[in-house]
């Protein structure tokens, strides 16, 4: 599906074919180990998608199977005209963009902090990646119940503490998940994804050529100058990679939306909406059309992602 992105990648020169008669058999022997994985992937990922494409052209509610009929692109028309579905497109974009941007900025700050040697660096690094290693559902449950709960969540508990500390009688106790539902989901996702960005950017920071950094320091470059003119350009590819991979994963987020708000209060993103449309509303055709829209959106991001990965990959190849 993302063939366009791969067109421009140049394959490295293949070894010249041996002139002997076994050339064809040898070529097959070379390819054979690749085939099981390839066939498996095509069967398990591409075939269902083709089926989704077909179903998306039908008006099909599983509760009324006898009324199933071909409708062409009308499901797609519904996806783009249905208020709720259109809102979920916007929600998806807002959710993905805000989580990615905030976690990249935080991740960069954390990576810069961890880039130097200090006492207990390994331990701090372990602390910082912990949120990423929690099972997403438990992280979402943790935020919903142990942190956001208006009666005994940590956030309001901390507010009460401050209130007592400064002698304020009844300090405001916000209901986080109902007053700011989208921000509540975003905060929990930022918490989970910042470590991912930090790990990638840390790898980038540590691959900076030490001689050039040293030379710049000797030439009298200040920390800010070094960051602005050496580190940041060097990190560009890593930033791109983090942003794009993060987008591809977060666009598909289901766990946090499902757990924290169940898609209520304008927080339903496309994956949740697709789930809801087919699992609860039994609208198979409509759900499939929405699914296809998610795919198209992801392909747009993925095309850039693949391009970034391929350029990193080429650099790697030319270095070795």
């Amino acid at each position: 599906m993302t063939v366009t992105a791969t067109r421009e990648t140049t394959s490295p020169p293949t070894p010249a074919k041996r002139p002997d008669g076994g050339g064809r058999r040898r070529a097959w022997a070379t390819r054979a180990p690749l085939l099981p994985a390839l066939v498996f992937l095509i069967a398990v990922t591409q075939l269902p998608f083709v089926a989704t494409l077909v179903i998306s052209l039908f008006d099909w509610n599983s509760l009324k199977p006898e009324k199933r009929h071909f409708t062409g692109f009308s499901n797609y028309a519904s996806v783009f005209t249905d208020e709720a579905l259109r809102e979920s497109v916007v929600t998806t974009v807002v959710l993905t963009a805000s989580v990615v941007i905030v976690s990249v900025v935080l991740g960069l700050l954390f990576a810069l902090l961890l880039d130097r040697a200090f006492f207990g660096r390994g331990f701090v690094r372990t602390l910082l990646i912990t949120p990423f290693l929690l099972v997403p559902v438990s992280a979402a449950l943790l935020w919903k119940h142990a942190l956001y709960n208006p009666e005994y969540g940590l956030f309001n508990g901390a507010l009460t503490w401050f209130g007592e500390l400064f002698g304020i009688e009844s300090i405001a106790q916000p209901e986080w998940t109902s007053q700011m539902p989208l921000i509540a989901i975003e905060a929990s996702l930022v918490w989970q994804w910042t470590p991912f960005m930090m790990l990638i950017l840390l790898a980038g920071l540590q691959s900076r050529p030490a001689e050039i950094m040293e030379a710049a320091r000797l030439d009298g470059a200040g920390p800010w100058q070094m960051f602005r003119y050496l580190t940041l350009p060097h990190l560009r590819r890593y930033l791109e990679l983090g942003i794009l991979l993060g987008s591809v994963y977060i666009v598909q987020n289901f766990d946090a939306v499902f757990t924290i708000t169940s898609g209520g209060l304008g927080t339903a993103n496309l994956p949740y909406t697709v789930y809801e449309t087919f699992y609860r509303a039994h609208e198979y055709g409509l759900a499939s059309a929405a699914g296809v829209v998610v795919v198209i959106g992801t392909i747009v991001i993925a095309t850039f992602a693949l391009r970034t990965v391929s350029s990193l990959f080429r650099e790697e190849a030319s270095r070795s």
Partner: protein
Amino acid sequence: MSASTATSASVPASASASVNAATRKARRRSAALGVAAWVVGIGFCLPALWMVLTSFHAEADAATNPPSIAATLTLDGYRTFFGGGGGPTPWPPLVNSLAASFFSTVLVLLLALPAAYALSIRRVRKWTDVMFFFLSTKMLPVVAGLLPVYLFAKNTGLLDNIWLLVLLYTSMNLPIAVWMMQSFLADVPVSIIEAAQVDGARLPTVLRRVVAPVAGPGIAATALICFIFSWNELLFARVLTGVVAGTAPVHLTTFVTSQGLFLAQLCAASVVVSLPVLVAGYAAQDKLVQGLSLGAVK
């Protein structure tokens, strides 16, 4: 800040003094940044630490405002989670998760190792195209194929069956595994492999005797990451399993609604379910980056 290094090369008489001042200043700054890193680390991890602490509290102490930090510690949350007190035991979901993750990881390795071998050691023609095809399937959102898979499972009686999850998790992790392993196998010197082939070794022998010892740590890290992703997965498990084959994440989501909210118990449950992933993740920390960035960042 930038003045510290600029002055060092100038006047000989005061040179050593100013260098000393500069290094002292730099040392103080890096000590301050070290402290800042500790504060940020603990602050950022606080929700997770809070979860662990709460899991060791009695229910009455867990649900208070302001929170009771000094409350007595107890294992009650864990005891109730594991079925003490007559509730349902979490063992079936945990075993389901373990089985689905383990078997899909094995299947991924069986499929990905030969593929990565073909892609990294013998350069297949158009190999980058093949690599990118693998990657592009990872970019295909799972919701896009969910409904047909559900219908297929319903019509073939595969619904609520962990083997279906095994197949789906394999397809979910295979692209990542191929990419990761490709980058690990590229480190195996081709000459050793050719020598083995000249000696008459066939593919399985080459993989076992030559490739595995060199790329072993990378293969292990790949396996860990596949295991983590399978263990974490919710959407497929939620839609395609039910009473019999429900996995640990599904159990967690139904936990709250079925028993009302018991915060300590919920935290205990979250800790237990996350524990395997935490252990695996800490173990694979370094390789984790490479794996998650699909081998592009070394």
